[in-house]
């Protein structure tokens, strides 16, 4: 089955950088790109157990007349043939419903705030809700296009971390790029992490495919993040704990996204690994 990445196109220089990241990602994993050029500043995404209204910032409606041509031009440069999605259903006349049956979605760190507010440590509430509700992982690109040369998976041993590891290994297989692991031990011995891999039947694949396992028993997490290569695609799982923390993901993800400028691929709690 064809793998697809969904991208909401922004016809600005920042939007171009983000689109180029999407195109690069699609080329790497041989996926098709599905592009939405917003006709309204808001849209709805109906997930399995949540409906997310995304209120785009005004820059998404910049020069709509040239948006498609710009997107096509960039896609063709990347030798990709984009499919433009036009909403078929509308909850209200100015509120289209977008499909959600994609394999990946690309979101900047914020879709509702002005570009000037985008910085490290800020992931917008809508992007968080999409990550939390979606069955697909969300690609959060860095602000400037940069080709990534390796894949680094944050592995903390949780169920979501295992899903993220499977996702990272899959990307490694499809792109042919080396896969690294990053673990902050928090007092747990390496054997317990290896046991998790054995229990999940992933030990063999990890030993074959993983180039380096950055395993930190000491030092602060923030400090250890320096060992993440600047040109790595970081893959991590995000999860909710309850009523309040459903909205605020685990602290590990908060720390990572605050300190790392890398492109991130985040698998939320409802992410389903394709068979």
């Amino acid at each position, binding site marked *: *089955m*064809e793998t697809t990445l969904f991208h909401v196109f922004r016809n600005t220089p920042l939007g171009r950088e983000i689109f180029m990241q999407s195109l690069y990602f699609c080329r790497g994993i041989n996926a*098709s790109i599905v592009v939405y050029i917003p006709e309204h500043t*808001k849209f*709805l995404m*109906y997930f399995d*157990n*949540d*409906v997310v*209204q995304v*209120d785009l910032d005004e820059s998404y409606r910049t020069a709509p007349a040239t948006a498609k041509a710009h997107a096509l031009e960039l896609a063709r440069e990347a030798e990709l*043939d984009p*499919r433009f*999605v036009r909403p*078929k*259903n*509308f*909850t*209200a*006349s*100015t*509120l289209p*419903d977008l*499909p959600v*049956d994609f394999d990946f979605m690309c979101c900047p760190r914020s879709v509702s705030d002005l570009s000037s507010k985008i910085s490290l440590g800020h992931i917008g509430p809508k992007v968080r809700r999409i990550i939390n509700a979606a069955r697909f992982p969300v690609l959060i690109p860095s602000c400037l296009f940069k080709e990534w040369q390796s894949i680094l998976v944050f592995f903390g041993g949780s169920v979501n971390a295992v899903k993220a590891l499977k996702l990272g290994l899959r990307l490694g297989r499809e792109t042919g790029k080396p896969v690294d692991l990053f673990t902050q031990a928090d007092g747990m011995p390496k054997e317990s992490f290896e046991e998790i891999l054995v229990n999940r039947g992933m030990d063999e694949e990890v030993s074959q495919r993983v180039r380096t396992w950055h395993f930190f028993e000491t030092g602060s997490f923030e400090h250890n993040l320096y060992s993440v290569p600047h040109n790595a695609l970081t893959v991590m799982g995000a999860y909710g704990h*309850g009523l309040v923390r459903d909205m605020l993901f685990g602290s590990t993800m908060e720390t990572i996204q605050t300190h790392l400028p890398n492109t991130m691929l985040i698998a939320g709690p409802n992410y389903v690994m394709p068979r």
Partner: protein
Amino acid sequence: MKQFISWRHPARLLPFRRDDRMLLIVMGIIVGISSGLAALGLNISLVFMLETLHHWRHHWWAFLLPAAGAMLSSLFLEKAMNEGAGHGVPEVIYSVSRYGGLMRFRSSISRLVASCLTIGSGGSAGPEAPVVMSGAAIGSNIAKLFYLNDRQRVTLVGCGAAGAIAAIFNAPLTGIIFTMEIILGEWSMVNIIPIAVAAVSGAEISRLLRGNSIAFESSGSFHIGSVDLVACLGLALVASMTSLILTRMLRRMHGVSSRVSVPKWVRAAMGGAAVGLLGFLVPDVLGEGYHAIHAMIQGNFTTGLTIAAIACLAKILATSLTLGWGGSGGIFAPCLVIGSFAGLAYHRLLVFFMPSVTWVNEGCFALLGMAGMISGILQAPLTGIFLILEITGSYEVMLALIIVSALSTTITHYFEPASFYLKDLTERGQLLRPGTDARVLADMTIREVLEKDCISVPPDMLLREFLHVVKRSTRNYFPVEDPDTGYFLGMVRFDHVRPYIFNTVMYDAVLVEQIMDADVETVHYDDELADVLHKMDATRCYSLPVVSNHRFVGMVSKATLLDKYRDELKVQTTQRM
């Protein structure tokens, strides 16, 4: 921790795992009480606003009050809540039809505040549709909180709507019937019980906080004679024509206002100001207008036939100006007011032409007019009948109510096949009632019926080699793909090969590309199955290739589709038991 997870996922608890009815009843009580409280909150806020603004109504600038209210309402919806204006019931029906009742949390409060501003300031609209929207959103979000499935969520959306209607009118039966007839569009045992419980909870909370009173009680009982029953036929016609005028005027106003190129809040203010000016001439058009209904049913509306007819038309105009130009609210209350004016005017016309006949009290015709109007515009006769019975307590007029409601629905349906709430959805093909062909097809995707066991062949393959492929294949369709790019080039059907099978000379002379159909109709797996079936019928094909990004993905066939269709239909109809 495990126990905590269980409470977030109550459907997984042992008592509810086999049969979730008890769970839905418990949830129904919670939703009914919550939506009832929301409805009462709006009611109390409206009374407060109307009483506060009442002292300013005699000033010359009072026409600006509805303008300010509509403007603030529009600004609140647009800027603060990021929602579009409107009464919202179609949105509830849409979410139930298409997305298993998923609704945004903001809808729980947005319409309550917006409609309070519009109606409280004098705009001609009703609070019932906003409370339905709010109740439904509360039900949806409670279901979301507890991770209930689509079917359970739809039931809770119904519970919210029923609780809200039951609370605002103190009419639990109407809440149940409105929900089943209009919101869900199906009568299933699994839904009725939780919805009934929610309606009772909503009504009880209303009685507890507001007292158990009948909204529009008549001064005495109505004794309907056979002459009155005959006159009901004419009243049904009047009510249905009035509902047609209101429906078309509302739509026309939407069209006119959308052509005015000013911000939405300015548009809403313009509509509100027009209503305010109309209110100087006919004060009964302002707000919900329930005081006028009281007067008519009690027989205290003393003005003559002409004034009653003018008031009826003025209320239609005011409602169209309020809702059509961007104010927030529903059409329930205006329908009741317009219907009672129409009934009253009709009664006075009868008395004028046939003064010697002993007619029933004019309040009875006002009441019947309300039923006719509600039944006509919503095309929901049971809702019309039970609403009037419960809000007036006049059970002795049951027979006349049935006649007027049934006839009004039938006549209106003749001119407008879809009700006011469903018209837009029907036109956009988005009304998907459970168990219908459209709903079954909408709930299936091409991915679910995709057949991937086709063997692809290159265009330069010789017929001899191709026949070997045919021999080991179980299918009659063979996609032809470019060996370099993987692009789909066309399709070879077994029928194409048949002329060459018995001519062995051709085996090494004919290439696949010579016999393939390069102009074959294709579908994409994002296409809707209803469209795919149309395409199959148009091209007289039983199978179509699914092509994405120039690549062959699989085949979709009518046979597999029918199998899956039956499975889906079984699921949808079993859920209704």
